[in-house]
């Protein structure tokens, strides 16, 4: 049977071959010695002959010819202390010499490893330049953990791309563990953006043993228990239930449609013996880079006019700033459907959140008394990464305790100005690329267990990249914002041409895996 070629291996071999050929070499030396004149290597361009006299002198020939009784050639005669005695053509009897050495310059090693690393770093750098969000994050990113164990736990208000789109974002901090009643989060600006942060408060919700607390889409908190993963999950590629059974960062993804980015797919979930009572569907997910691509594309179409166009949108013109989000909104969130009793499905709500970085946990309360043994998820192909789905029994509603930061530290030192700004609802904290501040939160005293959430409010401005500053194509921009459905069809081929590369960057990142 003929074996299939392995493209990855072929590519690696090609890179190694190119690297081996192109890498700078450090010349080496090959030295041979003989006492027999007849065995002296013939003259060539990269070879020198050193003929040693018994008394310590040496004749170095650049070119030579060994004859029957003599050596003839051009070179230099050095004394025993290697001072120059004569230069020029020589004819020397062979019996004057006791030893012949030939030195040949060799190309030397090429350091293929460094050449491969140059290619790897260059390619990754190029891809990062094309898609900065994949490499440098976006929106305020929040990290927990110390040196060596720092992990991404939340990203704030990803869709708030102008001041009028200022929004509040609530993220469950499942991987954050308080130490002695204190929580420390690192807030960073890792993108080419200006962040304006109104506040970044911790919300602590009390929870009982074996209980979790989740936020429903309306901002209320519910205790949940009996988290029940799906017994089966049928998608186009087969049963994906194994990927959805635990919040373990093993995500189910799919590829976008080649003709229409808005094309939906369905995942049919089956739950064994769902509990009775109030139920809710828990979904842990994040977006792919599709909406990021659309937003960047919009900015590149605006080109050098981006600033004035965004100002116009901010003032309410052309449908207002909200219209900037229309292409992304056309992609939609994850619809949750239940059987309608007539052989079809009815949508009972939707879950999801804008942002490709941090995984978000969402709870959708299901209608009272519904049969939740079968649930269908309807979502845009290639737009979502699903990590975990579970059916939960809903408990009582809980109230959160709001905890503004009690300290803000920059480089380990108190920064009271930043703290005052974050605690003052009338001001926003401006953060530029590279800014990082540690926010310290003190939990209420007592032995209680808390479910933690981060509530961040603000907006951000994307910086224009050099490659976007070409001539504006305002007609295309207008079409993109005014006819998102048509634009999603027109842009499908272009997106498909970069989709796999964008995904590979993400999936190849151990950092992102560790962060989830």
């Amino acid at each position, binding site marked *: 049977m003929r074996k299939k070629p392995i493209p990855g291996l072929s590519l690696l071999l090609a890179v190694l071959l190119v690297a081996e050929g192109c890498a700078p070499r450090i010349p080496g030396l090959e030295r041979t010695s003989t006492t027999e004149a007849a065995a002296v290597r013939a003259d060539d361009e990269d070879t020198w002959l050193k003929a040693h006299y018994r008394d310590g002198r040496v004749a170095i020939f650049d070119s030579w010819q060994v004859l029957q009784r003599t050596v003839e050639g051009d070179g230099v005669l050095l004394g025993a202390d290697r001072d120059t005695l004569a230069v020029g053509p020589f004819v020397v009897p062979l019996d004057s010499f006791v030893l012949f050495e030939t030195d040949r310059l060799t190309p030397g090693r090429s350091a293929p490893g460094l050449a491969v690393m140059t290619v790897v770093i260059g390619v990754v750098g190029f891809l990062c330049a094309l898609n900065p969000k*994949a490499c440098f994050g976006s929106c305020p990113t929040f990290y927990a953990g110390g040196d060596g164990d720092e992990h991404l736990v939340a990203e704030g208000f990803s869709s708030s791309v102008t001041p009028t789109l200022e929004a509040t974002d609530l993220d469950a901090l499942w991987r954050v563990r308080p130490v002695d009643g204190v929580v420390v989060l690192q807030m960073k600006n890792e993108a080419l953006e200006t962040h304006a942060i109104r506040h970044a408060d911790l919300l602590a919700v009390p929870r009982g043993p074996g209980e979790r607390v989740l936020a429903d889409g309306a901002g209320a908190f519910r205790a949940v228990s009996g988290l029940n993963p799906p017994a089966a999950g049928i998608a186009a590629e087969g049963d994906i239930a194994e990927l959805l059974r635990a919040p373990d960062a093993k995500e189910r993804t799919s590829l976008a449609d080649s003709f229409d980015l808005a094309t939906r797919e369905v995942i049919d979930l089956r739950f064994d013996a769902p509990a009775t009572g109030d139920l809710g569907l828990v979904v842990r997910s994040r977006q792919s880079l599709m909406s990021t691509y659309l937003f960047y594309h919009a900015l590149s179409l605006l080109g050098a006019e981006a600033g004035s166009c965004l100002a116009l949108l901010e003032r309410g013109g052309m449908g207002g700033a909200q219209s900037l989000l229309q292409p992304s909104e056309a992609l939609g969130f994850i619809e949750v459907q239940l059987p309608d009793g007539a052989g079809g499905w009815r949508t009972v709500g939707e879950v999801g959140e804008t942002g490709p970085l941090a995984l978000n946990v969402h709870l959708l309360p299901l209608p009272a008394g519904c049969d939740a043994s079968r649930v269908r998820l309807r979502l845009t192909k290639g737009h979502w990464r699903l990590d975990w789905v579970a059916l939960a029994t809903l408990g009582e509603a809980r109230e959160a305790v709001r905890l503004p930061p009690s300290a803000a530290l920059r480089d380990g030192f108190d920064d009271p100005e930043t703290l005052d700004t974050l605690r003052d609802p009338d001001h926003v904290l401006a953060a530029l690329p590279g800014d990082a501040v540690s926010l310290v939160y003190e939990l209420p005293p007592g032995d209680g267990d808390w479910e933690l959430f981060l509530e961040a409010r603000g907006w951000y401005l994307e910086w224009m990249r050099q490659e976007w500053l070409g001539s504006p194509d305002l007609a295309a921009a207008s079409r993109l914002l005014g006819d998102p459905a048509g634009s999603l069809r027109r842009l499908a081929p272009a997106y498909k041409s970069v989709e796999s590369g964008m995904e590979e960057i993400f999936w190849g990142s151990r950092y992102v895996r560790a962060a989830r």
Partner: protein
Amino acid sequence: MSARRASIAAAAAALVLGGCAGAPGPRGYLSTAPEVVHTARGGWVKVVRSSADATFGSQLVVEGELLAAGADTLHVLTGTGPLTVVRAPRDRVTLVGLHNRAGERALASLGLSILSLSNGWYSVITMPLNWLVGIVESHTQSRVGVLEIRDGPWDACRTHARFPQGMPPGLDPQRLTLHWYWPSAPRGFSTPR
């Protein structure tokens, strides 16, 4: 990775790479391969002798230009004059025939470390991977042109001796001088001629 951490990491990498890439022998003495073909000086040799008594450990016996080598003797031109060393058990000889430019590999790797900052989060992978590759490549290059002999005959050193045919009869070694490329010799050595 923050800029501060990255710069600390790059500095650490420079130290590690620099340490790994350090070819034995004084830089002011050794010639590169294209220069060696035009000269006829000996390589730089070091003889370290291990004492039978572990209390005394290993000691440097001699260091300098290799004039000639036999199975049990080395003629070495040191900064203070010529010496003949007779082989003893457990002697360790390091002979460096040329300047192998291993430091350039380390510099290239350091440059790549800085370039890897353009990889954003992925520098968490590419930067240490680059260090690993850089350390291996620098170390490999640092062994080019280096001969090490532990507790064995010394004939192989002849290849990089000033007089591979052996010490010329009638030659007064006291008349020989060390030649340096750089204007200042290492401490302890005489000023170059």
